[in-house]
């Protein structure tokens, strides 16, 4: 699987990363190099194998724990927002969003 510069541009956009031209080129070479070692993986026959999300699922069924419906978090707005880049009247500020 060989990536193209268009792939790099598309992925960078999806991931919201601005790449300089040299960065994009380097990225392309390095990621393509990586996909060289991926080929062996693709060749493996995995018919009938269930994917494993939680590692310990190898030996026991791991299922979702459910908590009671209780609202116990207090209002901690100031503490939670203390590292925010831009806040006004309790709102996070971002460049205007146009629909």
């Amino acid at each position, binding site marked *: 699987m060989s990536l193209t510069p268009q792939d790099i541009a598309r992925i960078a956009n999806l991931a919201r990363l601005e790449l300089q031209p040299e960065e994009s080129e380097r990225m392309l070479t390095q990621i393509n190099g990586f996909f060289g070692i991926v080929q062996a993986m693709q060749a493996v026959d995995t018919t009938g194998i269930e994917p494993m999300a939680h590692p310990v699922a190898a030996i026991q069924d791991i299922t979702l724990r*459910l908590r*009671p*419906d209780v*609202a116990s978090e207090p209002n*901690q707005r100031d503490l*939670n927002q203390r590292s925010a880049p831009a806040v*006004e009247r*309790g709102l996070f500020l971002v460049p205007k*969003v146009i*629909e």
Partner: protein
Amino acid sequence: MSKLVQGYEVVIGFETHAQLSTKSKIFSRASVAFGAEPNTQACAVDMALPGTLPVMNIGAVERAIEFGLAINAHIAERSIFARKNYFYPDLPKGYQISQFEIPVVQGGEVSFFLEVGKETVRKTVRLERAHLEEDAGKSLHEDSSLGASIGDGRGQSGIDLNRAGTPLLEIVTQPDMRSSEEAVAYAKELHKIVTWIGICDGNMQEGSFRCDANVSVRKPGGQLGTRREIKNLNSFKFMQQAIDYEVRWQIDQIEDGIAIQQATVLFDTDTGETRAMRTKEDAADYRYFPDPDLPPLVIGRDWVERVKGEMAELPRVMAERFVQDYALPEYDATQLTQSKAVAAYFEATAKACGQAKLASNWIMGEVSRRLNASEKSIEQAPVSAAQLAALIGRISDNTISNNAARQVFEGLWNQEGDVDVIIEAKGLKQMNDTGELEKIIDEVLAANPKNVEEFKAGNAKALNGLVGPIMKASKGKANPGQVNALLMKKLG
């Protein structure tokens, strides 16, 4: 059968996001109460602070089970939460936890009645699925003063994450609807179901019940057309208008030879038009994958059975029971099961007076009218079911006429006292004594020879000229049935 618009068949599917009526959020313990100050109900998990993790709220799962049972769907024994990845300021993690390949509720259907011409037709819309997911926060754009504090003259949007993490049930239909009327009827029935079973408060103005309509058109027998999605239809009134406009717009485009592009559109309530949103680039590539922070959700059959046992009778089942037990027409039964409270009011009235059809008429008529006019809900009705039953009783036993009953009802509504007290006070007791009535009739007949002649000559309408004065002379207390019967006797 589909109603065609300019020769085109309309195909509509709905996606509805219902906010679930839990106390806390789906993945955190922050409150979901509406109307709090910005970001005071967004805890560290909701703000996606580094190191935070989701923990599932049992109340959200229970409500999904209740919904699945209400619509006869399959409730998955194992379902998976997946991440839907995209960037938006009201989406703090940069992904929404939702369900993709394996949702919690699968299939199901919603049935309702629709007036098609003079007929009442039963329609069924199949559901594809319903799944649990978290809501995003809110962006506030309108305030142009935002940003003053950071010296940004370009204007900023303010992000409030209070709503982020509120549990949603996303309910998706098959594209089974064929007209805007059907679509609205479906939406209303769905609204009734979720509020009836108590999983959602249905407050559309507060955003608890949000509908998106996928609309396309095609020539009958042709392939499915490209659909456009009308987002955020938050009132039934605008829903039909928006769909109708969109349908006509699509047909006009096609007739002009312009192909429909898939798009997301918004309905402008001022102009009455749908307008394409600025496209979110690459919005389609959400890179779904199972959320590694959440193991599979397992719902055992015994849990489902327990929920089933605890659920109240569903509206459609109750309506069918009303038809059976009370000999009501389907239309009445549907109207009376619009909410649990109305249904309870009806049953209490019907059982107390034994006159189900009369009870139905009064509730669908006078009671509804007055409640709507005063913007009250039936729980706030000044007339109790017992009082209405008593009133109906007095009509049935001929104590008062129908006309008089309306006046008594007015008195009850204004809380002037109980039925008999009001009848007395207003002197509305019907004159049932035929002796007195005969006297009055004889007097009126004598005073109106012309009408008598005309009637005997074959003009049935001439009777009205006699009934009026009789009623007047009896001060409205004459029993109209008796008046007619006696007149007939006397006039041959």
